[in-house]
């Protein structure tokens, strides 16, 4: 094997017009390196100049560069970290994105040789490779071109195969790789380049799914979740005027616009867009988070198809419990869990719900427990893929816990002391608002519900009905009276308020009384993944028309929850008191509207009265409630 050096006019003439074998070339380079230590630096400097170039290279210069890199691979034992600092800087300053595959291959061969030759270079090599996860800024504008996509594929293939090769040679290198990746990860709120950020996470997911997955996959997922949370926290809901929150209401869920009459549909889409635009449109973090979520959803889908979802989900679950659950104000990151559960409801879905229930019932920190039960309630209510029987089982556990709690208490209302209990009661009511209508259609579950001690809990002197959010209590009354499962003599007409002093007291400064983590996802792209498995309030809410068109409404329920073996229709009519309640409810909604009276939204509300579950948005808690 021989290499013929082609020397151009404007390149340093290190080896002129001579033919050298590979080993001779290595010998020359070694010699140059050794001589430089003794003070004879001419050849060494020429070598450095070849590697460190500032202009675009011609074919001959490229050939010389490749030759030098290959020769250096054979001379790594002569490279001295102190004496050859310039050469080392030149090598590690090279960017794979700037070269064709021949240079790329020669460079990574050298990197691999350096990493394997001495522990001193491992850090530098890994750092350089991680640095090549993202292209140089000039490349971002061309990323949609086929040529750039090919280059992207070549570079990233090269980077990942080299990382694997280094791990084979240096078994502990994945530990350092994890550190390098987390170190180089962009940190909000710095100005993040969206393309680079997505590509960086793409690489992390590729590592997770690749040969190094068993070694670094866990850390990659954890770091990604942490990153999502940090982006999530940067979305400044405080930009929304305070007045909007004191009124505190979104008049309708964004999802409710789906499926209404054609004449409204177009306008409603505009309305939805305008709401998203108003609150998130100008927010660069929201858009970035949206793109990242889509990337992760695709990855989870891939994991599901390759049978790795359970393994990945375990890591996500632990990460969720450690990072997301305790912050009480994550708005979007939790949809990673929702989507993963939707891919495997039987396994992942149940694990998620069981973990939340376990945190609520068996841990110490009160805020964590309240957060967990809020997640559980929101999940059971919104996840279309959770069967009614699973909901009934979870509800049974919640009710039993609340019932046991009541038995040990003989005092009266105290929102602060009993906040965990009130959070549990609110969760029970919230879930029933969404699921009772479908559950009572199944005789077994209806019986199961009747046997629960819900009435006893709600009538206890701790008075959860007075402490929990009034709007949830009101809607609960409505659903209960419709199903005729329980009776509450103290059912009162609504005053239309969203919160009360007592609810605020049990929610604390974290606002956990208003925390509904799986409210509709306001991120447009991510929502397209969530939507097929998501239950909007309009899908389960009965309307006055239901009483007249019962058949149609039953179809709606079937559609919302899928085929869950519903074999009996047994739904009671509504009492006079409830109609009276409805009127108040409607009025309260009008009163709470933040939308101009003549707006399209207002017309829509007027047209479809009682279509809305009380929904709201508040900066510190949730993008939308109920």
């Amino acid at each position, binding site marked *: 094997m021989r290499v013929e050096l082609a020397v151009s006019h404007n390149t340093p003439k290190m080896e002129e017009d001579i033919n050298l074998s590979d080993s001779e070339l290595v010998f020359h380079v070694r010699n140059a390196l050794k001589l430089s230590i003794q003070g004879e630096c001419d050849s060494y400097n020429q070598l450095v100049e070849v590697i460190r170039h500032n202009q675009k290279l011609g074919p001959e210069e490229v050939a010389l560069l490749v030759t030098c890199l290959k020769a250096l691979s054979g001379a*790594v034992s002569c490279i001295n970290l102190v004496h050859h600092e310039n050469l080392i800087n030149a090598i590690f300053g090279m960017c794979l994105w700037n070269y064709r595959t021949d240079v790329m291959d020669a460079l990574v061969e050298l990197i691999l040789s350096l990493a394997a030759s*001495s522990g001193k270079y*491992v850090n530098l090599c890994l750092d350089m490779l991680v640095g090549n996860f993202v292209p140089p800024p000039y490349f971002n504008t061309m990323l949609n071109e086929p040529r750039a996509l090919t280059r992207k594929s070549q570079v990233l293939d090269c980077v990942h195969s080299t990382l694997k090769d280094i791990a084979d*040679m240096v078994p502990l290198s994945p530990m350092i790789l994890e550190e390098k990746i987390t170190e180089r990860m962009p940190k909000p709120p710095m100005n993040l380049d969206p393309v680079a950020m997505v590509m960086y996470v793409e690489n992390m997911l590729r590592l997770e799914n690749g040969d190094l997955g068993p070694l670094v996959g866990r850390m990659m997922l954890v770091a990604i979740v942490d990153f999502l949370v940090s982006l999530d926290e940067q979305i400044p809901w405080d930009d929304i005027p305070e007045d909007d929150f004191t009124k505190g209401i979104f008049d309708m869920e964004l999802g409710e616009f789906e499926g209404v009459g054609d004449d409204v549909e177009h306008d409603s889409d505009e309305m939805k867009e305008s709401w998203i635009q108003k609150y998130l449109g100008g927010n660069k973090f929201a858009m970035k988070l949206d793109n990242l979520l889509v990337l992760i959803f695709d990855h989870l889908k891939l994991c599901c198809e390759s049978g790795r979802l359970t393994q990945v989900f375990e890591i996500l679950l632990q990460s969720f419990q450690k990072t997301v659950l305790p912050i009480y104000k994550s708005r979007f990151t939790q949809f990673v869990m929702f989507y993963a559960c939707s891919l495997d409801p039987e396994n992942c879905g149940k694990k998620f719900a069981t973990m939340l229930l376990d945190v609520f019932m068996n841990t110490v920190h009160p805020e964590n427990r309240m957060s967990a039960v809020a997640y559980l309630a929101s999940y059971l209510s919104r996840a279309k893929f959770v069967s009614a029987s699973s909901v009934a089982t979870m509800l049974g556990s919640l009710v039993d816990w609340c019932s046991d709690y009541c038995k040990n208490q003989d005092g009266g209302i105290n929102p602060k002391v009993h906040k965990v209990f009130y959070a549990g009661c609110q969760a029970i009511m919230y879930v029933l608002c969404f699921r009772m209508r479908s559950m009572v259609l199944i005789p077994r579950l209806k019986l199961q519900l009747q046997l629960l001690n819900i009435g006893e809990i709600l009538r206890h002197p701790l008075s959860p009905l007075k402490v929990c959010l009034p709007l949830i209590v009101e809607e609960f009354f409505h659903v209960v009276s419709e199903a005729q499962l329980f009776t509450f003599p103290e059912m009162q007409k609504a005053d239309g308020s969203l919160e009360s002093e007592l609810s605020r007291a049990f929610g604390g400064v974290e606002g956990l009384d208003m925390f509904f983590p799986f409210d509709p996802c306001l991120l447009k792209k991510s929502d397209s993944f969530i939507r097929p498995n998501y239950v909007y309030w309009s899908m389960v809410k009965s309307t006055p028309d239901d009483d007249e068109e019962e058949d149609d409404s039953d179809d709606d329920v079937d559609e919302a929850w899928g085929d869950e073996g519903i074999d009996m229709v047994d739904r009671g009519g509504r009492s006079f008191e409830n109609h009276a309640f409805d009127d108040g409810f409607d009025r309260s909604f009008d009163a709470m509207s933040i939308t101009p009276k003549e707006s399209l939204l207002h017309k829509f509300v007027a047209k479809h009265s009682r279509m809305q579950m009380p929904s709201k948005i508040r900066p510190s808690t949730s993008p939308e409630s109920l």
Partner: protein
Amino acid sequence: MEALKVANANLVVRVHPSKSRKVTEAVLAELSSLLFKFNETFDGVVLAYDPNNWSSAARILPGVHPYLNVGLSAKLLLFSPKPNMLIEGEVIKVCQQSIHLIVLGFSSAVIMEEDLRDEFKYKFKDGKEVFISQQQKKHRIENGAVLRFAVKSFDEEILHISGSLEPAHTGNVQWLEKNLEKWSQVESSKGRRSD
């Protein structure tokens, strides 16, 4: 193999108050954090631990965070390679300028061309890279072989060993085990003749 030793250590593990319900788990997690890292106190890399003699009287340290002080003694298996020690590793790559090995599955090692005895010559045979002894043709160093080599230096951060095949009795372990006795006799008789 040299460089492996067992040490009896008396340890005190400080357990965070949040772990007070699961002290055993917390102590074991703390011990696990020592694994595969060079520890100056033990002068080696902790490869395994076997805790025993747990103190039943953990102390609560006064202060803002009342950590629990749990005393225990443990047997530690340490990997502590020093220059000139003979250790063994599996060859994972052979190239003209170097031989790369993995020692005990976690530590990387490299033997550079200049640290090989002159008898070993690089060959590219049947699509495989191999070093073959010119004196003993069956003494070969190729991928998958287990080598006994001398330690030149040890990078404590990345646990990377620089090795040498200069000393006698180093090379392919399989060949050495079979032929060492015979080879030694030949070498010593050569020595006597030369005297």
